[in-house]
């Protein structure tokens, strides 16, 4: 009898805490999204799906949704493309590998907020060192006001997003590569397979589950990523760099439109749930194999 109840006692405290922090606010968000709310958060009459209707008629919301798609796809694909070769190199034995690993991992160790604050300064139009570096290299003739326009600010934010996602992704891949047995390569080499064939026929298939998991997890993290855009442009100028998370924050805490902000939260929650289901299925499939 005691054995049967023990595990439940053991998981209970963690379950209660995590559930309270997640389910309770979720309930609040649902009720906010269905009621008329004043800017101090007082609930008034039930309005049904009115907030959702207002959102879908809001051009800034539609633009932020599309931008979120571009943001997520560019950062995730960019990260994966950059990370595969880095992980392959870091998995080899060479002089200075320890230092190379630490350097590549550095952005993970420093908070996103600090990295974004520093980039905001480096991208400064007059005194920023990116402009002076590019001028010294002869790549640009005059200073660029990087953050003053979406056409330069947004690509820069995507670049920062890629740089800070690479460490986590490389870490996952390194874990995957370390599970590839060496004798497989030796066997392939004796069969006369070249380096490219070895990569295509052995490494890539064995790395595939790790690429899948890195893809889904990165999609979730990048989709949720708030500090880079908030710190560098706060979604501006003129709402032109908002993604869903920053627009949600702007609506909720700057403009006091809590009902619509809650509606965005729920829409994001639904999208995240789909990503999560994909992840669970992938992870379960790994487990079976």
């Amino acid at each position, binding site marked *: 009898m005691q054995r049967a109840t023990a595990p439940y006692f053991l998981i209970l405290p963690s379950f209660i805490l995590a559930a309270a922090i997640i389910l309770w606010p979720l309930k609040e968000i649902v009720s906010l999204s269905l009621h008329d709310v004043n800017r101090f958060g007082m609930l008034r009459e039930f309005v049904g799906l009115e907030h959702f209707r207002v959102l879908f008629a809001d051009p800034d919301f539609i633009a932020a949704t599309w931008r979120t798609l571009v943001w997520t796809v560019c950062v995730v694909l960019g990260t994966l493309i950059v990370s595969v070769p880095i992980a392959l190199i870091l998995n080899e034995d060479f002089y200075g590998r320890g230092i190379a690993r630490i350097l590549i991992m550095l952005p993970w*160790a420093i908070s996103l907020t*600090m990295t974004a604050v520093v980039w905001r300064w480096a991208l400064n139009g007059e005194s920023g*060192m990116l402009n002076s570096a590019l001028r010294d290299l002869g790549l640009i003739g005059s200073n660029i006001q990087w953050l003053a326009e979406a056409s330069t600010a947004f690509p820069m934010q995507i670049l920062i997003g890629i740089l800070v996602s690479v460490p986590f992704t490389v870490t996952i891949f390194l874990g995957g590569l370390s599970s590839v047995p060496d004798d497989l390569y030796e066997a392939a080499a004796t069969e006369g397979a070249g380096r490219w064939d070895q990569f295509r026929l052995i490494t890539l298939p064995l790395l595939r589950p790790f690429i899948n998991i890195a893809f889904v997890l990165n999609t979730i993290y990048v989709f949720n990523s708030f500090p880079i855009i908030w710190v560098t442009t706060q979604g501006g100028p003129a709402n032109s760099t908002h993604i869903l*998370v920053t627009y949600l924050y702007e609506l909720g805490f700057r403009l006091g439109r809590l009902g619509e902000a809650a509606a965005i939260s729920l829409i994001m929650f639904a999208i995240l749930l789909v*990503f999560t289901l994909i992840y669970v299925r992938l*992870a379960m499939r790994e487990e079976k194999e």
Partner: protein
Amino acid sequence: MMNSKLKRSLVFWLFLSPIVVVILFPYVVMTITSLKSATEVLNPTWWPEELHWQNFSEMWQTSGIASALANSLYVSTLSTLLTIVVSIPAAYALSRYQFAGRNAYRQFLLVSQMLSPIVLVIGLFRLVANAGMIDNLNVLVIIYTGFNIAFCVWMLQSYFSTIPRDLEEAAWMEGANRWRTLRSVFLPLAVPAMVVTAIFTFINAWNEFVIALTMLRKEENYTLPIRVLSLVAGRYTVDWHYVMAAAFVASVPVAILFAWLQRYLVRGLSIGAVK
């Protein structure tokens, strides 16, 4: 043999150099700017004419970073302890017992890990505001704990599963009861895993942004990320040399800790991701 390794190293470093340069760029800018004089900051030279070490002491006095450092330490330490205390039993249960609902609990953890604070921040703010607990650092402790539990249980569980059961079973055979076995066999072996997981939990809390931004209104309660952002956002003139000095102080200790520990993360994550 030696020669071919040297050649390989050169080729690899050549491949890595573009990405290393881009990754290091902002942190080099941070370090250089933090050592420039106020007049030289606006002039984007690479090397300052004289190194202004006094930026750090001046920043320390004017920016209020000392109290932010204390707040960050308080919140991160307390929430790490709380997270670890509730996660160890849960991870132990997952790795040592078979029970109905085990898989459901694991999936609950997975889903809760997917939800970032930003999606729930509106609801959390309302709850905290209604309870009149805005600007209360202990609220931050509880919220960080709630969000870190999933990661923590997941990591601990994957490490615990690597501790061989035979040792515990041998102790039972010798007549030790479950609690005694736990205390004298299992826990000592699990200490390294707990320390590593605790440190990563600490770093997560140390770097958290959106909850602190929302729940803290008074300057004296700011944590480090909010304090550093407040030196930049909504100001007409920004003392960038002080900001960069503050960012340096806020990030370098944690970065060193992380660099030292990152190989454990590779192990924990890869075990957790596949097993």
